[in-house]
């Protein structure tokens, strides 16, 4: 910690340390609930509390039994398989449609751009329970309720706004003369898209995709409405686990999901840095 310069007044000193304390408290408030569950997931007992043995750092008090339960229990494995099927499928749809929508909406000649954008973003703003209930009624009519396709489409609708927002942000910095140059050099629009535009906006597309993936992977409300027992996902199983069994296996799953999220966010950050490096093109 850097020493304060000699001319600081008492008031400035007090504020300096108060400010650091507030920041520390905010970070603690955000992180603590997540950190607390990680040691608990290694609990040797079937409780949600820290046992005296754990606090004494006794190796006997720790075990991997909840992780073993997660990997051996057919309910959890089925939920895991469902999540791993639904989330990637929903992500693919979100990324494909969201990227195309963002590119289309960034063209100045498209009419009603703002209105279309607002409609596409709305699943992010409308309370989830309303979207979910709406989807339930709509999907029941068209026969999608209780199918994988229904859940995937529902999650895709939730993920599209993230893709649109991140890709639109990337496109703001996109130099239109690059596509003009490509046209001048005889590339058709499809070639231009895949060879010129896509590589440059890829970081935005991927981070949008990661958000869409996490949205689907964490989502419980829509899947409760639109899915049936056959489409039970991890969050749904955790929800049941909390409500009916209070099994510490949830903690093991939560830890696994936290680790997964950290890995994904690290990927996003690395991609952002790569994109900034590429942006270093500005002439002069």
């Amino acid at each position, binding site marked *: 910690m850097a020493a304060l310069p000699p001319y600081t007044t008492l008031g400035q000193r007090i504020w300096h340390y108060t400010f650091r304390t507030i920041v520390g408290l905010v970070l603690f408030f955000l992180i603590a609930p997540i950190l607390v569950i990680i040691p608990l997931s290694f609990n040797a007992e079937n409780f949600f509390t820290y046992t005296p043995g754990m606090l004494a750092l006794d190796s006997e008090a720790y075990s991997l039994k909840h992780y073993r339960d997660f990997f051996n229990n057919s309910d959890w494995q089925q939920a895991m398989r469902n999540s791993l099927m639904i989330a990637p499928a929903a992500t693919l749809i979100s990324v494909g449609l969201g990227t195309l929508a963002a590119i289309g909406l960034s063209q100045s*000649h498209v009419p009603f751009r703002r209105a279309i954008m607002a409609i596409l973003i709305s699943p992010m703003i409308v309370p989830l329970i309303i979207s979910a209930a709406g989807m339930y009624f709509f999907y029941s009519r068209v026969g999608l309720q209780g199918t994988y396709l229904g859940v995937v489409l529902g999650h895709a609708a939730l993920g599209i706004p993230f893709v649109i927002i991140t890709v639109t942000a990337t496109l703001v910095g996109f130099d239109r003369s690059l596509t003009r140059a490509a046209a001048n*050099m005889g590339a058709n629009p499809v070639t231009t898209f895949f060879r010129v535009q896509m590589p440059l906006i890829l970081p935005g597309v991927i981070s949008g995709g990661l958000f869409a993936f996490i949205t689907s992977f964490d989502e419980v409300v829509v899947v409760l409405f639109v899915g049936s027992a056959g489409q039970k996902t991890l969050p749904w199983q955790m929800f049941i686990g909390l409500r009916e069994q209070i099994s510490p296996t949830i903690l093991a799953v939560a830890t696994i999901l936290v680790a997964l999220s950290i890995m994904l966010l690290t990927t996003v950050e690395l991609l952002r840095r790569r994109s900034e490096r590429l942006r270093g093109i500005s002439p002069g």
Partner: protein
Amino acid sequence: MANLKLDRVGKTYAGGVSAVENASFEIADGEFIVLVGPSGCGKSTMLRMIAGLEEITDGDVQIGDRSVNGVEPGDRNIAMVFQNYALYPHMTVRGNMAYGLRNQGMPKPEVEARIAEAARFLQLEPYLDRKPSALSGGQRQRVAMGRAIVREPSVFLFDEPLSNLDAKLRTQLRAELKDLHKRLGATFIYVTHDQIEAMSLADRIVIMSAGRIEQIGTPMELYANPASTFVAEFIGAPPMNVLPVTGEAARAFLAQEARVPDDLGHVGIRPELMSIGDNGIPATITLVEPLGAETLVHLKMGADKLIMRSGHGLALDAGAEIKVAVEAGALRFFDRDGRTRSA
């Protein structure tokens, strides 16, 4: 083969805004044409219409006696160099230069041969495997030109290619461009807002203002005989002094002229066609700008202000009273709309 003809070309945007109106001119094969004008005069729009990147709403563009209105940009045998170079940041210099050729489906050995030749030509050989972000401004500019050269087009289009460079590099690349034009023998169309670039590069200049062509001619034609007060004030630094005919200065100049056209609006005179004499029009020096080889002298004649160009070593200061002599035939006459009138 690569002569170009624009016939009453116009561009009106969807909102009804007209960017270019009724532009007609012809460009001979191998000519270096510069489109010049202030920002927003339609010169870049014109260039993009020739390139096919912008739709033409009126008239006809012909390249080599073939109308290209409906022809794809890539099929016009035109290469364009963009103001910000438009290099692909994710490709190496080699990849950038190969891009257009690969789109044409050219076999790899030929692509490599052309890149090698262009790289030697532009002294880019050491940089072929670098990304554009690792190059200096001048080098990026050369890569952009290399990307155009490898395609061996019949027409090169340049959209303010030097405007992002510093003054010294600009002067150097200007000379290189002129040299490049000589060596390639292709038709060059070059857009700039810098009249010095236009004067030094062009075989002929097309000067535009507010979507219209003001005048077409060789640099010296435009300089000596501007078609309007706009051209007179745009070409030359410092520009031609354009004085309202009602002012004291204009009356004093006209009093010395034998034949004066009627219905005058303005009188013009180039700064270097005036000098300090023993007798002439009385004036007061308001500011002296010594520039080394020459000195710019700001004058006041009654209520009118003008600039005179003088040699170095002027021993006068602001406030001095002088007499201004005018060379014979130096005056240019303009009507009330700013159009040229001949005596």
